[in-house]
């Protein structure tokens, strides 16, 4: 009960801050929209080897990747905000109160997950304008997966931010770790035969985001029964839980 009460308090405050700075919601979707405008037109011919013949089919492959990209990058850079809060003394002020340490993290990560779903909604709507179609129920399930990814990546980001505590280390660290994760997830182009060499497929299978992209793609293609859907959901759920616990421990631990 206390956990829910405390999480709600932190969530409310974080949501209020977001509402007062709504620009960030739109800055966040700027990149995906650019991809949609400037990159997506290349896709139909490029994806022809996969049997893609229409724009709609191309979008069904590309849009899920784009949304996962939004979730990964949006989440991984949330730590910047926390570093600012650390510097302003807000984290220290929270830590001397009896508030639940897990709530300090959950309140923030849940806010991030909800913002991400809103952003994903906007991007999806735009894609629909360009000719993308999918089943609503499947999209909602895909959004659940995206929310889990955002919970995971933002928790990791907060945990890392608490450890490194300054932007100059945090930014390159996040950039270098997110690039291989991004490339090995098949976001831009599916890492499947006949595109990808076998070794690349083998390596990508170790990347959890590969599975989430596969799962989201299956959902958008209407293959809800595909095994990649439950695999993707399960993997993100497990990793999100692990990330939350790891990061909450950082909040609890006495730090400098």
């Amino acid at each position: 009960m206390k956990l829910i009460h405390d999480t709600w308090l932190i969530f409310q405050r974080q949501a209020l801050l977001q509402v007062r700075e709504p620009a960030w919601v739109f800055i966040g979707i700027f990149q995906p929209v650019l991809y949609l405008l400037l990159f997506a037109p290349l896709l139909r011919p490029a994806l022809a080897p996969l049997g893609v013949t229409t724009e709609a089919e191309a979008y069904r492959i590309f849009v899920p990747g784009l949304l996962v990209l939004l979730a990964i990058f949006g989440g991984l850079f949330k730590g910047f905000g926390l570093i600012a809060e650390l510097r302003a003394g807000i984290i220290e002020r929270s830590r001397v109160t009896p508030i639940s340490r897990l709530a300090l993290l959950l309140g923030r990560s849940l806010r991030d997950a909800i913002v991400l779903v809103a952003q994903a909604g906007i991007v999806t709507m735009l894609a629909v304008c360009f000719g993308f179609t999918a089943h609503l129920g499947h999209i909602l399930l895909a959004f659940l997966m995206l929310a889990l990814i955002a919970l995971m990546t933002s928790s990791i980001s907060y945990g890392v931010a608490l450890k490194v505590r300054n932007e100059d280390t945090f930014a390159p660290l996040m950039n270098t770790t997110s690039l291989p994760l991004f490339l090995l997830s098949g976001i831009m182009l599916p890492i499947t035969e006949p595109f990808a060499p076998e070794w690349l497929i083998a390596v990508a299978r170790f990347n959890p985001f590969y599975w989430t992209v596969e799962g989201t793609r299956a959902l958008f293609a209407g293959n809800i029964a595909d095994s990649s859907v439950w695999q993707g959901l399960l993997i993100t759920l497990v990793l999100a839980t692990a990330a939350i616990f790891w990061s909450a421990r950082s909040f609890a631990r006495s730090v400098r």
Partner: protein
Amino acid sequence: MIIETKNLRKSFHSRQGRKIKTVEAVCGVDMAIAEGEIFGFLGPNGAGKTTTLRILATLIEPDEGMATIAGVDLRREPGEVRRRIGYVAQGGSTWDEVSAREELILQARMYGISKTEANKRADRALEVFQLTEFADRKCKTYSGGQRRRVDVALGVIHEPRVAFLDEPTTGLDPQSRAHMWEEIRRLRHEGMTVFITTHYMDEADALCDRVAIIDNGEIVAEGTPAALKRQISGEVVTVGLDGEISTASEMLETKPYVRKLEICEENLRLYVEEGATAVPQIMRTLEGAHLMLKSITIHRPSLDDVFLAKTGRSLREA
């Protein structure tokens, strides 16, 4: 005793190139603070005041030693300690984009206070800390002194038994400082024990019931301001000279009315029984030797003199 500490120690290790540098921030602090006191921690920059406070506020674990706060063991039950204390950090603690009222309500609710009660407390705190006028403006628009008042109001909104205030008056103008002192006295009147740090000796003197002087992580003197000053008996005469300080000090050192003599920058400080009778004699001696006297002042010993006597440095220059 509401706060008792035994042999608290904390060192920091920081890497400088290959070498690991160790700073002993707190080295063996023993304190006993009675309930309902305003206790002052007086010391220069880097003395270890903040580190000690952060240990007592459960933010860092001491390397050694133990402490009990309001009957709770700090190491064993930090969560229980948090329920009983309030803490105001030296550097402030507010979000830029929210108002003082919103901050106060959230802070009260983080302590489990109900929504309606939190609203009431926020109203009251805004009033007593004179924040009403800008209560609903964003914190980023406040002046430094206004922010400081918000910080302190946040630290005591839940009416803790012990409040730790790290330099509550730094950055305040004389009027706001006097007002903050009033507030701190009011907190004591309501039964709160208040532990403040300061590097203003006039503040320690005027506000605190008891003072501990800390330097290089160690408590060098402790007691009521009056008792501390009594250790420096008599009066202090400060003589300003145009050079030739050492000559003057040699001449005066041997005089029977001079108990102790210290060279302090451009000045000589003489501890004497009675300033009024010592001054003419000092002037005669110096003029006899043709030394140019620039200024001469008599004052009763201050906490600065206590600090000087214990550490050999003045708090002003430390």
